[in-house]
């Protein structure tokens, strides 16, 4: 049988300069199948082939800076071919600005502070290295989530700041904090950063509260 129709799974750009597309290969059955990624640019008839099948691993196509333009929409298809024939995926349209998914924020610090018998937590962080260098070109927005262990996440959108003060924390509880970020207009949230922990000291003033 000719191969099944392959499917383009996703395309991502880490920094609005290059991007990669991955596809789900057509089921082979016995015959060996090879895949070709073809693309055209909006307003142009010309069809190009994937410039680099290697850099991003199997079943992928990597577009380096020279092949990445964010002034156009890409129309991308993948063709699977074996001895019996070939089959082409549905077209996948890509606008690089919409597929930017940065790396998570880094250098996250948690600092407990006390004022008027109340403890609050100051969280600071830095943009991921790739984005930090191009501030103004890749403007990031951040979201922070925190929770006492075992409870529901409390997620806070923090905008473009790189610091947040969490208040109304429960004394004596161990808190977990994570951050992620996204380009300010279009694009996707990064993965969550690794979990960070901090323990809120028991409130010595508890007896005053009773």
């Amino acid at each position, binding site marked *: 049988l000719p191969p099944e129709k392959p499917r383009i799974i996703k395309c991502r750009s880490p920094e609005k300069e290059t991007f990669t597309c991955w596809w789900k290969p057509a089921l082979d059955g016995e015959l060996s199948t090879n895949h070709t990624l073809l693309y055209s640019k*909006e*307003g142009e008839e010309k069809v190009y082939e994937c410039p680099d099948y290697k850099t991003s691993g199997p079943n992928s196509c990597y577009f380096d*800076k020279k092949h990445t*333009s*964010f*002034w*156009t*929409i890409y*129309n991308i298809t993948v063709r699977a071919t074996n001895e019996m024939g070939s089959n082409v995926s549905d*077209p996948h*349209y*890509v*606008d690089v*600005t*919409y*597929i930017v998914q940065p790396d998570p924020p880094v250098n996250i610090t948690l600092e407990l502070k006390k004022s008027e018998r109340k403890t609050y937590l100051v969280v600071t962080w830095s943009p991921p290295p790739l984005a930090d*260098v*191009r501030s*103004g*070109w890749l403007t990031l927005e951040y979201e922070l989530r925190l929770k006492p262990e075992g409870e529901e996440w409390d997620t806070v959108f923090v905008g473009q700041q790189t610091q947040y003060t969490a208040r109304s924390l429960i004394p004596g509880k161990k808190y977990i904090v994570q951050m992620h970020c996204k380009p300010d*207009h279009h694009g996707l949230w990064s993965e969550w950063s690794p979990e960070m922990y901090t323990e809120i000291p028991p409130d010595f003033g508890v007896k005053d509260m009773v």
Partner: protein
Amino acid sequence: LPICPNGSVNCQLSLEELFDRAVKLSHYIHFLSSEMFNEFDERYAQGRGFIAKAVNSCHTASLTTPEDKEQAQQIHHEDLLNLILGVLRSWNDPLIHLASEVQTIKEAPETILWKAVEIEEQNKRLLEGMEKIVGRVHSGEVENDIYTPWDGLPSLQLADEDSRLFAFYNLLHCLRRDSHKIDNYLKVLKCRLIHDNNC
């Protein structure tokens, strides 16, 4: 129907999206050019009176560009777009040489070197975008004739240190000025063509 990333039916970037990206890029290029000029000025130009000598010496000075709000608002948008294209093209060559020659400056900090390369790349990218915008907006053929040649390479390679540093200072001063013009004109055009002067 194909699912276009931005929901448009014919899977084409709208003029608004092209302008949004062009303005974000021109803002970024000017931000870099400004920082590079300031870094160079602080490190190499203090007390040398370069500003007095840098008067009227940009290779793009012959291009008559709007110098105030009224002129920027009265010029036809196609003429202003062509002017922007002309200024961008006129910087292609000097930026290529700047990116290489800046490496020869004594103890040039990494931040200046990196910016020179980044500006050269992004300037090409903005030129690509502007040609696309002009193609969309222009009724006729895209004019290719606005361009001013740059003959400043020898001065970047002079033996005399002071003269060579002034040549760099002047180039960075002109780059800061012209990239600011381009950024400002694009913001005016975007407000005029996309937001009906109601930004």
